[in-house]
């Protein structure tokens, strides 16, 4: 599938300090990408560079197949975004703010403002001045504005800030709907794993400005199951034995040092016997179970 957003070795340095370093992101068209990391990990920095608010110190951002430059304005028409907290003209109503947004974006679809407000449950507050909105309402209005012009790519930095659990659930359903019905690609950053794990197709984990992992939810669901981890002196030969002798298919070489076997019907005893018979030296073997949350915490744990 075609990537709609890619970053290559993206680095941002301010006052000789690397806020993010060599970040590579790959967001496929039509998917929901969860960008996870603890507070201060560099999520917003990356989001700002992707939306062209900040310029990279080095590396590139590729949007819709084109490299982003300081004067790449056309791509902004195809994007909707919220970076940090959404800002509004507080003296204007929610509806007026959205109408103004349409005028600047050069988008004129009759009824789109009302539709967007209804989508976020803000129809009743449409005529109210934004300065009278609660934090949650402002956040929802920000999302209504981001989706207003039906962008191909939606970049949302911590979009559920200030929302109650019901509001969060409503947003998760909305994001899935926007993805399925409108074909939008959505990048959501968050420091809360549970917020994105139920909707994301792919997850990128950043910590201390360094991209730790980019993984599909399919792979994560595999990791959620129990597996046997095997360390052998000769991994190639070990993989051959698993495939040819034990007829295992659901295993993979992990970080070049281990093999993880997800097939449920095999025991550590079977593996040890088969590998030993074929002269493969086993360095370590054991059954493991790792929940996604543990996995995330392991990746972002302070050394």
């Amino acid at each position: 599938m075609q990537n709609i957003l890619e970053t290559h070795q993206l680095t941002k340095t301010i006052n000789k300090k690397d806020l993010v370093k060599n970040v590579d992101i790959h967001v496929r068209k039509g998917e929901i990408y969860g960008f996870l990391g603890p507070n201060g990990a560099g999520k917003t920095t990356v989001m700002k560079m992707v939306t062209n608010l900040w310029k990279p110190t080095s590396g590139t951002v590729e949007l819709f197949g084109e490299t982003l430059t300081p004067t790449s304005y056309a791509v902004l028409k195809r994007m909707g975004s919220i970076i940090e907290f959404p800002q509004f003209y507080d003296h204007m109503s929610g509806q007026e703010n959205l109408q103004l947004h349409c005028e600047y974006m050069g988008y004129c679809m009759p009824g789109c403002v009302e539709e967007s407000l209804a989508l976020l449950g803000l129809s009743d507050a449409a005529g109210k001045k934004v300065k009278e909105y609660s934090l949650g309402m402002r956040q929802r209005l920000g999302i209504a504005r981001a989706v207003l012009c039906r962008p191909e790519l939606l970049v949302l930095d911590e979009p559920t800030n200030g929302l109650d659990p019901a509001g969060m659930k409503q947003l998760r359903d909305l994001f899935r709907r926007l993805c399925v019905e409108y074909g939008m690609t959505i990048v959501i950053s968050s420091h809360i794993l549970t917020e994105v794990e139920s909707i994301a197709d792919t997850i990128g984990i950043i910590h201390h400005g360094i991209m730790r992992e980019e993984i599909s939810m399919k792979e994560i669901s595999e990791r959620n199951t129990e597996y046997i981890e095997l360390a052998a002196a000769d991994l190639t030969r070990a993989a051959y034995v698993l495939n040819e002798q034990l007829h295992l298919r659901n295993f993979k070489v992990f970080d070049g040092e281990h093999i993880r076997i997800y097939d449920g019907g095999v025991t550590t005893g079977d593996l040890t016997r088969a590998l030993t018979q074929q002269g493969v030296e086993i360095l370590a073997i054991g059954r493991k179970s790792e929940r996604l949350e543990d996995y995330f915490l392991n990746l972002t744990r302070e050394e």
Partner: protein
Amino acid sequence: MLKLIRLEWKKNRIGKYICKAVIMTAIITLMIAAMAGELESVETMTAYGTSMMTASVNLFVNMAYIIMTGVMLSIFIVGAYEKKTIHLMFSYPISRKKILASKMLAVWIFNVAAMIASKTFVCAVLLLVRPLLGIDAAGIAFGAPDFWLDMVLGSAAMVSISYIALPVGLLMKSSKATIVAAVVITFMTQGNIGSATLVNNVPFYGMLLVIAAWAAFLSVHRVEVRDLP
């Protein structure tokens, strides 16, 4: 560009500034009419122009609009950076230079037009009440092209000079600093110490206009590659 200027006026509620300009003009008119007799006897006023009435109109209206321009620049541009609405503006598919230029032009056009309207109104009222107050309004010559040329060029120059306050506010990231800078410009260009004043000092005004042009340039220079705070 015209659409962007119109949108700037719309979102910043230009009607509010029109009301302020009307009130300001009314106060200046009343003030000059009330002080008409006094002004003619003030010796230093001769430094402000050949005609006492046009000189006093220019003085008060210029002062009011230099500060008004500073206030509007602080709200339209510096305030947008402070409140981070500029983040939103820079997320639109429009050149950043064009966005800032439209903001600057929105303030400039409004203030030049309002200044000309204010001066015209004050002069017209003074002309009307001249017989009642016994004012010498010889300098107010609506029929003379030079009168209008002076008014238009003078207004454009004064509003332009106010733009020196813009980079001050942007550098200090403060709306208040923009307004304070505008007040300082007002004193520099309109003030006097005894009979010494820089009003109508063409080289001085020329220098300020060059600085103002440089200030406007600085405000948009490299805006495309600058990171937003």
